[in-house]
């Protein structure tokens, strides 16, 4: 009967195991720079000497290959179907980290069946010992599969912008996760900030509504921590259009500096 529920069973609680810390990078709707943030955080972590994997957790619908200008030759689909090994599917990305691209063949896994669950569990178990950080890029929308994958993460990073639509989506995401998943450290990264302090303002606005409407439904109140605010920076648009990593092409610009600071905070926890 579990299939009748729109949100998946939370699955096994994410016990802290040796190996990579898994961070789900999410936002609800797309268009806030989530993949851009995930890729550049990964590059910043890689610069700090960490072994990092970015995984397309939306199974083919995230934009990781577009942002990184990579072609998915061997994909997760090939791994799932036994046509390739995990090693063959792990690709080096320009920023010194690894990516695992899903490939569009994975549309057939858009439904959370026991088989898909097992494959995803096996996959995360297989990559966990080999990296220090795994970032799950969740793409646009929250499918049953994405919710399940997020449930396997050790922490959640919500990416938002100060736009009202993004705020609403970020809040809705927090609400879905709070209602259907075990409590975990939840952090916020505010992208495209026009003014210094926008990030703190956004966090405060979200926290206020979380305190009033979400926390009373939980055993423990949900506290949002601000991982960082990334300023609106023309260099970002330039890097995105050239399909380059900001950390690679313009590491000194304001947005790159802010992302590096956020990555450093991700390391200290």
């Amino acid at each position, binding site marked *: 009967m579990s*299939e*009748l529920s*729109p*949100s998946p069973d939370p699955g096994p609680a994410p016990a802290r195991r040796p190996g990579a810390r898994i961070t789900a990078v999410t936002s*609800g*709707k797309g268009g806030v720079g989530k993949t851009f943030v995930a890729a550049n955080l990964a590059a910043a972590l890689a610069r700090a000497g960490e072994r990092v994997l970015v995984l397309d957790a939306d199974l083919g619908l995230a934009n990781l290959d577009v942002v990184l200008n990579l072609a998915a030759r061997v994909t997760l689909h090939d791994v799932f179907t036994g046509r390739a090994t995990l090693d063959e599917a792990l690709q080096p990305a320009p920023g010194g980290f690894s990516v695992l691209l899903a490939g569009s063949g994975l549309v057939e896994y*858009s*439904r959370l069946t026991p088989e898909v669950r097992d494959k995803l569990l096996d996959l995360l178990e297989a990559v966990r010992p080999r990296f220090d950080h795994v970032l799950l890029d969740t793409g*646009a*929308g*929250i*499918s*049953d599969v994405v919710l399940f994958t997020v449930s396997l993460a050790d922490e959640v990073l919500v990416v938002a912008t100060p736009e*009202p639509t993004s*705020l*609403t*989506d970020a*809040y*809705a995401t927090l*609400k*879905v996760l709070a*209602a259907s998943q075990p409590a975990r450290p939840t952090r916020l990264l505010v992208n495209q900030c026009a003014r210094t302090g926008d990030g*703190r*303002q956004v*966090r*405060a*606005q*979200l*926290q*206020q*509504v979380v305190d*009033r*409407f979400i926390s009373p439904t939980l055993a423990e109140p949900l506290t949002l*921590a*601000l991982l960082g605010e990334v300023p609106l920076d023309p260099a970002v648009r330039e890097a995105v259009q050239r399909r380059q990593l900001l950390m690679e092409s313009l590491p000194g610009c304001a947005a790159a500096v802010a992302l590096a600071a956020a990555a450093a905070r991700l390391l200290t926890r």
Partner: protein
Amino acid sequence: MPSLEASAAPTAPATPASQGLRLDNALALLRQAGCAEPAHPPGSPAYLQTLIDQLVELSSRDPLSGLANRRNFEMALAREVDRVARSGEPALLLVVDVDHFKRVNDLHGHAAGDEVIRRVGQALTESVRPMDLVARIGGEEFAVLLPNCPSAFGPQVAQRVRQRVARTAVTLPDGRALSVTVSVGGAFAPQWVRSTPGLWLQRADLQLYRAKAEGRDRVCLEPVASHEVSVQERDLLLGGPKIQDSE
């Protein structure tokens, strides 16, 4: 350049496309369904295209009610699931079941049952917008797919559908009038969540069972998912007092 073989000369009418095709069964089927034979020259591409179009139309309609059939409905449902995941627009699925339909058949005969199906289908079509899809998806079960239907309107729309049927008097073959009622179950597609058509239909069906169990002739809608952002939440989020973050 060598000349073409004589066999290629245009001596015969333009029927290469239909050579070897057996169209008798298709034509008989379409005649039976009341479709006019295509006006184009027999065997021409236009003739065949019209024939295919008519067959497609025939295979997507329920012959008794004239509504979309189950196959057509499932395609529309899959499209809507994709659309909602991308656009975030709310969409409502209603499943409608005729109450005590077996009794109609047993007491008044199958002709009466058929008439009930036709009249209910008609009432459903009249109770919703032209853009909504009304389908017959089972013996006495119908579905109504309403794209772009805000959740606040759901209960009103579902009640209107139920009441429209309840007000419809079905005239039996023997001239007597019969009133029928329906039970309605409904569920919204979760906004910007990629779900599956099967899951959505199951959720609406679950509400239909509830409506049946609670005594029929009523509407049960799935409570709006808890993750939907309420007006109060949105107001506080977007219009709330500007407070200083103490972090």
